C-alpha cells in the first residue's frame, strides 16, 4: 500500500478537500502505521503550540550594555594599534630614505659641507628678497582694507579651533550611557 499521500495530508497544516479527508479517514481506520504517525504528530504539535517563550535571566539589558562598552573599548584599541602601525611604517620608510641620503653624504664630508653652505646662502638670499618685497608693499597704498585682513585672520583662527575640537572629539573615548 502507498502511504505517501496519506502521510503528506497528515503532516500538512493546510485544509483538505472533502474527498481527501474522507480517503484519509478510511485509510487511518485500516493502517496502524499512519495512525501512529497521526497520534504522534498530534501530541508533538500540541506540545510545540503550548510551550511558552523561554526568557533570559534577569539583567539581560545591563549585560548587553556592558558588552557594548567592551566592544567599543576593543574597537578603540584596534584603531589605536592601526594608527601606531601606520605611523611606524611611515617612520620606517623615512628612516630608510633619510639613512641612505646621510650615508651618501658621510662618504664625502667636503661635499656635505658645501651643500650646507649652499643651503645657508640660498636661505639668506630668500630672506633678502622677502625683505625687499615687504618694503615695496609698505610704500604702496593698501589694496586690501585692514578690516578684511582682520576677518581673514579671524576665520583662519576659527577653522583651527574647529579642527582641534573635532580631532579631540574623535580621539577621546566616549562614555557609555
Amino acid at each position: 500500500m502507498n502511504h505517501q499521500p496519506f502521510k503528506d495530508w497528515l503532516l500538512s497544516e493546510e485544509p483538505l478537500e472533502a474527498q481527501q479527508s474522507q480517503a484519509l479517514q478510511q485509510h487511518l481506520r485500516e493502517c496502524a502505521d499512519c495512525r501512529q504517525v497521526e497520534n504522534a504528530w498530534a501530541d508533538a504539535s500540541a506540545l510545540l503550540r503550548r510551550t511558552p517563550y523561554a526568557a533570559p535571566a534577569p539583567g539581560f539589558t545591563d549585560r548587553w550594555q556592558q558588552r557594548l562598552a567592551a566592544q567599543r573599548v576593543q574597537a578603540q584599541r584596534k584603531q589605536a594599534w592601526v594608527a601606531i602601525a601606520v605611523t611606524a611604517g611611515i617612520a620606517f620608510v623615512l628612516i630608510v630614505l633619510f639613512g641612505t641620503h646621510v650615508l651618501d653624504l658621510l662618504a664625502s664630508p667636503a661635499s656635505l659641507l658645501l651643500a650646507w653652505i649652499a643651503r645657508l646662502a640660498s636661505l639668506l638670499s630668500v630672506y633678502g628678497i622677502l625683505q625687499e618685497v615687504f618694503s615695496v608693499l609698505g610704500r604702496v597704498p593698501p589694496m586690501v582694507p585692514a578690516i578684511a585682513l582682520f576677518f581673514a585672520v579671524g576665520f583662519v583662527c576659527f577653522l583651527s579651533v574647529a579642527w582641534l575640537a573635532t580631532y579631540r572629539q574623535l580621539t577621546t573615548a566616549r562614555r557609555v550611557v
Partner: protein
Amino acid sequence: MIQIEPDLILQAQKGNSEAFTTIVEAYQRPVFNLCYRMLGDPDEAEDAAQETFLRAYNKLRGYDPTRAFSTWLLSIAAHYCIDQLRKRRLTLVSMDAMPYLDPPDTNPGPEAAFHIKEDQRRIQVMLKALGPQDRAAVVLYYWYDFSYEEIAQQLETTVSAVKSRLHRARLSLAQTWSEQESQRLTTEGKRHESPAF
C-alpha cells in the same frame, strides 16, 4: 509579536543608545527564545542573543524601515544560530540546564514543575533531531507564527522549499516523539515491575 514605535528606531539609527537600550528591553525575550530553541542551551542562547543585539546595533543604519523590525532582528538571530550550529557539530549540550519561562510561573507545585521541565526536555530533544535550517523553520512557524513567505525571506529560500522543510521536520518530530514515548513506557514498565527475588 511586540511592535515598537518607528520613532524609537529612527532615534536609535541616529545614534541614541538609550533608544536602542529600550529596543533591547522590548525584544530580549523573543530573541532569547529563538536562540534557546535553536541552540538548546541557556548559556549559549544568552551569548547568541547578546551577539544578535550587538550585530543589530552595528548594522542599524542599514535597516530598511519598510520591513518589520522584528523580522529583521529575528533574521539576524536565526542566521547567527545556524552558523553556530554548523560550527559546533559535535559539541554536547546539557538538556538539564533550564531557562526562565515566559510567562514565568511564580510558584509551580512539584508536579507542575516536573511536567514543565519534562516538556522542555522533550521539546529540545525533538528540535535537536532537526538540521539547522529545518529547526529555524519550525521555530519561526510555531513560536512566531511566521507565514511561509516570511520564513522563506528570513532563510533566503523559496516558499516551496520552506513547505518541504516543514513537512520533513514534522515527520521527524513525530518520529522522535514516538521514540520518546516508547522509551518512557519502557522505563515506567521497568519501574513498576516486581523486584526479582
